[in-house]
């Protein structure tokens, strides 16, 4: 996992898993990296193959830790490019309502057109 800060954006990349094995380390590392001048946090999930409840809990903990930052206009926490299965876990736990999710090629949700049996 790599953490970099540039132009007010804290970027997390190279996260191969976010689960019970590394959730605590993730929380600690991110809490230390939060500086007052941050404008955004971006967590790149494109390489993340596994997320479990502990990992989801770590994301929620980050959301809570950054509550002072979130009060600032324009501040955002983004989860970028989650793999399809990771996105399913995020949605199952309803975290997509808390975080901005950026997914290239994503389409808005919607129901299928109705099919008539007659």
């Amino acid at each position, binding site marked *: 996992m790599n953490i970099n800060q540039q132009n007010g954006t804290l970027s997390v990349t190279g996260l191969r898993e976010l689960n019970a094995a590394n959730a605590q380390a993730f929380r600690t590392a991110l809490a230390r990296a939060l500086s007052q001048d941050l404008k955004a946090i971006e967590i790149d999930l494109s390489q993340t193959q596994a997320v479990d409840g*502990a990992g989801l809990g770590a994301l929620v903990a980050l959301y809570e830790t950054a509550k002072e930052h979130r009060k600032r206009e324009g501040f955002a926490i983004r989860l970028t490019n989650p793999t399809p299965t990771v996105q399913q876990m995020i949605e199952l736990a309803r975290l997509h309502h808390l975080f901005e999710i950026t997914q290239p090629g994503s389409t808005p949700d919607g129901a299928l057109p109705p099919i008539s049996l007659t």
Partner: protein
Amino acid sequence: MKALLICPNERTGVAALAECVPLANVSILGKTLVEYWLEHLAGLGAQEVVVLAADRPDEVRAGIGDGARWGLRVIVKSDKRERTLEEARTRHQASDHTSWLPAPNDVTLMDNLPGLPQLPLFTSYADWFAVAQALMPHAWTPDRIGVRELKPGVWVGLNAHIATGAELIAPCWIGERAWIEAGATIGPSAVLEREVFIARGAEVSHSIIGPETLVGQFTEIRNSIAWGSTLVNWQRDSCLKVPDSFLLCSREPRRARPVPASTPAPVQAPVSGTASFLEYVSQLLT
């Protein structure tokens, strides 16, 4: 008169769910696929039905018994692979000159529901979901003992428990012995099969929840098919085994498709995490 039913074996479009249950035993609004077909064949005058099953024939046999429920004699035969219609006719009719139902009802490959050949079930998860949605308004038939329409477009099965404070949004189907806790929201376009448990605050819409599945507190299932711990998003065609039982799991240990003896047994991951953050998220969202 006799008839043959061929159970679908492997279908790549719904492979993850075929791991959970033989496709002939897939429950669709409270009845399995093979039950729909046996009922249909009995209505056409069949007296004996041979069911050819290449995938988990014991489970298919256990699901339908001897056929007395439909006034039929049903024999489930184990087969090495799924037969074509012509193969089945050659193997089973050529040596048996008793009376068969007229074609095409003499031999059926169960890839759709009776009378709905235009709606394939197993080409994709989206197709499966579409069939369940299309069938929902027509599934409340007189033989469904105990099913009632609670309000327009909301059907509830026998001995289902719906707590005060749970919200049901039409159209939705609540299977028999389902249990819905307070604060849960079901629908629109939701199907809960039998003995589903929906925990407090969970939301299910545009989805099917398979039999004996537990949906955890404050979770959200949308545009998906959940079967035990298997979660499929039918819109994006992505499939996940949920690792945490407090999010999604089977209420019963499920028999998996048999694996070759040389394949090592999968290691069961320990349950990890806690559900407390879900309640926190729920509080933030209200």
